[in-house]
């Protein structure tokens, strides 16, 4: 990092006299010097170029192309429509109850997953930050769900939450909720299906976030805690008054990350549906997320233009929500901004 920053400053100093007229110094530069200059000035850009290239090909281009498609009539089953649609796809979006339903579901599941997920991750991390027996075992253990392939775990959860022979109902039955005669149908309404899907998301991501928090926590000096303990602060108070403010950048990072992930939720709701092929997210769209709706509109209704418009709307929504969340988190976790 420091070399890349130094390079332009250095070159400016050299270029300034050079611009007045080619001095004798310039001519005396042999190939070694030139190579050195090339190395200093351009090599860093060349080295990071592959990333940007891939980003252009697989990130920027699809984004822009998507924008173009969203202004088109792009129906696979009806090529007779006029080429350009103008903003028709976007105006249609505003009155589409499926879209608003999907948005509502997405936010519902997002709140049910992100908030408990990050709070629990914080608690888990602070537990792991103590002196424990078999420390590495615990730390690797909490990361295991993250390593599990998402399709595999979603399918297992899908069976776990099934109505007739599901383990979730069996466990709840032990505590007196639901009975074999009137089992909970996890796919019949919004609260149940949202809870089930949020559980899948939480299970997968708590460990990952906890590990990020743990890494940040280990850079907090011990004496801060010791001083607080002497002043009479308990573990809970220490967590909220010392740990959280001091790992605030990581918290903001995880909040942004889980916002993006939460609003793009696809695999879990998709595989939760017994009739996954239809991508309707339940018989009445109970848990259809926006990503799922985009897939349905594009590849089931074969309306790629409208699906592209939805993708763009989702992109803008994520930008706004991630921005708001960053601000909120900064405030809540004691940042100065």
């Amino acid at each position, binding site marked *: 990092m420091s070399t890349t920053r130094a390079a332009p400053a250095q070159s400016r100093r050299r270029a300034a006299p050079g611009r007045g007229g080619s001095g004798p110094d310039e001519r005396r530069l042999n190939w070694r010097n030139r190579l050195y200059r090339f190395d200093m000035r351009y090599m860093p*850009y060349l080295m990071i170029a592959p990333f940007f*290239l891939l980003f252009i090909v697989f990130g920027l281009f699809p984004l822009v192309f998507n924008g173009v498609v969203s202004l088109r009539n792009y129906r696979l*089953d009806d090529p007779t429509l006029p080429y350009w649609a103008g903003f028709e796809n976007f105006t249609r979006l505003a009155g589409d109850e499926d879209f608003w339903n999907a948005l509502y579901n997405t936010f519902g599941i997002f709140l049910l997953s992100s908030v408990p997920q990050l709070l629990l991750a914080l608690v888990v991390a602070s537990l792991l930050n103590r002196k424990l027996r078999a420390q590495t075992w615990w730390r690797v253990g909490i990361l295991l769900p993250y390593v599990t392939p998402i399709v595999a775990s979603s399918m297992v959860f899908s*069976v776990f939450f*099934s109505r*007739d022979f599901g383990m979730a109902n069996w466990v709840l039955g032990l505590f007196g909720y639901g009975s074999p005669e009137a089992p909970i149908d996890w796919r019949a309404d919004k609260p149940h299906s949202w809870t089930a899907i949020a559980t899948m998301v939480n299970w997968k991501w708590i460990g990952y976030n906890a590990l990020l928090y743990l890494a940040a926590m280990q850079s907090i000096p011990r004496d801060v805690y010791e001083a607080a303990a002497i002043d009479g602060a308990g573990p809970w108070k220490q967590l909220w008054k010392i740990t959280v403010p001091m790992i605030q950048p990581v918290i903001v990072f995880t909040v942004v990350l889980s916002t993006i992930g939460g609003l793009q939720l696809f695999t879990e709701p998709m595989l939760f549906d017994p009739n996954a092929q239809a991508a309707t997210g*339940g*018989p*009445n769209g109970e848990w259809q997320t926006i990503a799922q709706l985009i897939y349905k509109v594009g590849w089931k209704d074969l309306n790629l233009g409208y699906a592209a418009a939805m993708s763009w709307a989702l992109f803008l929504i994520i930008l706004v929500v991630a921005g708001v969340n960053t601000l909120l988190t900064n405030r809540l976790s004691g940042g100065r901004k």
Partner: protein
Amino acid sequence: MKRSWTHWARAAAAGAVSLLMVAACSGRSTTDDASGGVVTLKINFWGDFGLQELKTRYEAANPNIRIQLNSGEYNAQHEDLQKKLVAGSGAADIAAVDEGFMVQFRGQSDKFVNLLDKGAGSYESKYLPWKWKQSLSADGKTQIGLGTDVGGLAMCYRTDLFKAAGLPTERDQVSALWPTWDKFIEVGQQYTAKTDKKFIDAGTNLFNPILGQQPVGFYNDQEQLQMEQGPKVAFDYTVKAVQAGLSANLVSFQADWDKGFTSGAFAVLACPAWMLGHIKDTAPGTEGKWDIAAVPGGGGNWGGSFLTIPKQGKHVDEAYELLEWLVQPEQQIEIFKKVGNLPSQPALYADPAIAEFKNPFFNDAPVGQIFPKMAQGLTPQYLGRKNGPTRVAVENVIRRVENKTLKPDAAWAEAVKEAEKAGKS
């Protein structure tokens, strides 16, 4: 200010250079395989189409042809074909398409080779009329695929559960119990009253066969939604059965449904020829407890495939020759013997290999007689462009009635509303 600008310019220049480098590397590297005189034909399909030995035989007879069999997952293969059609290249030379996806691809008939141009018109009389019509474009001028197998449709029932409920167990007597769907529901009510168990697996698996028997489905051939005719008949029967508590409210191919085969969660289900293998695999312990009776209403089909030739292929002529060879009677019988796929050409049903075939798992039911009869009893029905989404929408309404989030008397209005929405999607 200036400094940051040159900064950007430099970054952009570096990016442009590397972009060129990548572009230089990614030039056309595909060599035309026709140069050596050998043409490779790729066939995309799912599961087992019984092509392995036919491939060897065809290659031996045609030394300039190599066949590449590419079996994948059912949904993935169709989605892959759709994406390659949009992209304009990369599709297989011969792509199998299932009945359930046929409407979608038939609507894009300009992307497929019109087999009528290749002389496939002479096969029309050999096929089941509805099978031929399924892959024909709306204007009747483009035929995008030739049929391979059909599912037919019969009712698989558990003889032990029927016996316990005091119902007859002999397949002819059972068929005689339900000549119509009204009778079928009556039998179901007797069964549930006696045993306090569910009779059928799902309302949707009642709705679809009944709808398939109607002269007009969701859409007429003018592409207008016709909810008050065929769909209304099928929907009323379905809701009646659900209200009477006959349905176990399961969803096909889901874990609970699979368990239902062994646990006796339902006593009867509509089953096409290919379902027999599924029952045998999911519930091997129920061997001998199943038998097969006729479908009420006298005809039906569920599933079956076609072979199509995407226009973008480089060797469409060779592909058509292979396709034509594959649908010939000898090959179709060969496939039936190998994997049990029932051909869609009625003349073949008289072949002893099919006519005398019995299935030991299902009490030696003469499946070679039952399924062809059901497949032939079906009248061709026009499937509209929006048939797939509309069917999903109405099925979802049925599922809502089943899980009691929708009142049965409000269901029909809701079904019409959802179907209209799906039609406009």
